[in-house]
């Protein structure tokens, strides 16, 4: 075991896949000479050279389109977005072209591309830099969507994403880049579409993903110590494919559900989850399914207000206590 930061775990995944497969390339703004806006790609240019680690102009539609075209011909590009908030510049490339290519070509053409970068609020970067588009992305059949919470998950999931033959949207988090976690020395993969129960419990299931999974774990500790409530925390890790079986197994155990997401509630991931849970496990529910989301407004610039707009341990705790009331 070694201890790595979240950004280092992603870098290791990239380096290992660049080494393993000569078709893997990394492209994006400042990924090469500047070592990445958040230093994820630090040192990769020196190790793999300018043909594999490519700086691009500020033109997401252009370089994502380039990556998609290259992927159709067998290259496995890993595109870095400085913020996922800028994906909409390339909306047509990603969600109309890449997402539909395998279906439209009758299975003859694949787009093995990974688009990765941070998608989160909480750092006071304002409404146009704080989008969390996993719900929008996941509503398009043909793409896969991954939101890792820990260094271990980030590395194992990114390696699987690079080896996957479909477009994979990989949503990171700037607040987590410095988080440390243990990583096995040996090569490992985490399959896409497999949830991880990060804490076992009996009274309440918290279904969550991304940074809110960590916040939920912290709230679950308080629930246990101060309120005698045993909460199970199920980290989805992948939004699509969705491991609904793991969620339902937990619901059948605890009978009460709180969904926690760094997502605005309207048409969010939690809405889909709540529908699926009640559809499949109606008779297992002992209380209405509850949801804690980002407060429904553009990302608020004021740091103290934004902290309350996003899920935080206090908000999660209050929501959880309502569900078990």
């Amino acid at each position, binding site marked *: 075991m070694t201890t790595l930061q979240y950004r280092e775990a992603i870098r290791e995944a990239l380096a290992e896949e660049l080494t393993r497969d000569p078709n893997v390339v990394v492209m994006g703004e400042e990924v090469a000479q500047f070592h990445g806006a958040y230093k994820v790609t630090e040192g990769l240019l020196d190790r793999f050279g300018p043909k594999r680690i490519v700086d691009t102009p500020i033109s997401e539609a252009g370089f994502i389109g380039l990556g998609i075209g290259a992927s159709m011909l067998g290259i496995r590009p890993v595109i870095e977005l400085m913020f996922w908030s800028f994906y909409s510049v390339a909306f047509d490339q990603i969600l109309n072209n890449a997402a539909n290519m395998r279906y439209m070509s009758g299975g003859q053409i694949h787009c093995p591309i990974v688009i990765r970068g941070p998608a989160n609020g909480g750092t006071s970067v304002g409404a146009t830099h704080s989008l969390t588009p996993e719900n929008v992305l996941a509503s398009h059949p043909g793409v896969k969507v991954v939101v890792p919470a820990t260094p271990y998950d980030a590395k194992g999931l990114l390696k699987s994403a690079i080896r996957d033959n479909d477009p994979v949207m990989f949503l990171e988090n700037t607040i987590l880049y410095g988080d440390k976690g243990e990583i096995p020395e040996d090569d490992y993969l985490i399959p896409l579409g497999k949830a991880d129960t990060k804490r076992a419990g009996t009274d309440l299931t918290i279904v969550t993903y991304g940074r809110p999974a960590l916040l939920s774990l912290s709230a679950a500790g308080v629930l246990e110590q101060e309120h005698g409530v045993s909460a199970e925390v199920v980290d989805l890790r992948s939004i699509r494919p969705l491991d609904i079986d793991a969620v339902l197994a937990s619901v059948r155990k605890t*009978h009460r559900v709180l969904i926690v997401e760094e997502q605005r509630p309207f048409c969010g991931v939690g809405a889909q989850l709540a529908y699926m849970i009640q559809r499949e496990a*109606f*008779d*297992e*529910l*002992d*209380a209405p399914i509850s949801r804690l989301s980002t407060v429904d407004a553009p990302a608020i610039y004021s740091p103290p207000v934004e902290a309350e707009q996003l899920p935080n341990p206090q908000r999660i705790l209050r929501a959880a206590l309502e569900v078990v*009331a």
Partner: protein
Amino acid sequence: MANIIEMPKLSDTMTVGTLVKWLKKEGDAVKTGDMLAEVETDKATMELESFFDGTLLAVFVPAGSQVPIGAALCAIGKSGEKVSAPAPAAKPPAAVPAAAPAPLPQAPASAPAPAPAPAALPEAKAEPAPAGRMRISPLARKLAAEKGIDPARIRGSGPGGRIVRSDVLGAAASPAQARAQGGGGGVPSPFAAGPVPGSKGAIQDDKLVPVSNIRATIARRLVESKSQIPHFYVEIEIDAEPMLALREQLNTALEKEGVKLSVNDFVLKASAEALRRVPAVNCSWENTAIRHHSAAHVSFAVAMEDGLITPVIRDAHLKSIFAISLEAKALGKRARERKLAPAEFTGGTFCVSNLGMMGIDRFSAIINPPNAAILAVGTTVRKPVARGDQVVVGQRMALSLSSDHRVVDGAIGASFLGALKELLEKPALLLL
């Protein structure tokens, strides 16, 4: 084209009515003026009159339903005419202006409209669970079925009384259940054993009874009164002997005329006269002004099976004790039959509550807003009293006045009871 009959607004505080009973059935011929159904409002049970001639084509709500104002009840048209039930969503209960701040319909008709009561509680606060719909989680429902427990016998501990899993498990583990399943063990103590021989069984069934309209109105108005009105109480004991003597004289002498005065008739008449002497009690608090009423409309509490109501003797200050007696008797009878019209139980300016006939010595009553006071009347008691230096047997009666201190001060309350005492102790004054 059939005429759709909707739930009418039968009292000014009504939002829903209970269709108690259909008096006509589908297919019956109906004439204008025929009574179609009995409807219980928050105040009384009233008959629903037809304003159409024709045939009762369809009945949309069964007897016993609670129906919001404006919802379709039935259709009247030509015999054989087709009529379809109106879409239930057309007038959902939510559309009922439930928040109408219960107007306090007490000002005499001749007076200008009272200022709106700003502090009136919105009725929407009262949230009785819809009758017949049980709140139970899906899991609890499934568990109860598995364990063969009737959910209706389980008390819910979840939000809004929802039955949740732990309630079902608790019911399953209750001693009664355990005994039935042969659980327990050990030597049974004779004191812990089941029902003693000769036990008459449970006091009553465990059950949840939905609050009736009339009960909900009583609850709302009394909470409003006791929480908003600063009540204070003054009490006096009077010598009832002269009044009882006069009553007996009149009832004996005028028996052929059908006169049968009750003690309460004397109290009602005396109250009206006392209000004339101390008119400051015949007032209402209206937040920025105190309304003075020119007439004494004296109401009296009548117990009904499921609550009480206060019919009003209008202009009691102008009526003889004999007129008051006849009117009180008629109103009391109609009140017990729930046949009072709204005008007969609204608009009082003072209220009398008498538990004397039930043997109560004395009690304090809650003011019926917007009255400024209510008189609580006890029974007449034979007891030793000092007359001069002698202890003799006297007939005594306790009167307690509850007053709204915003309107009536202690001295005024005392003057009023003093006037009442004089009138009842010199009852000939009540015949003037």
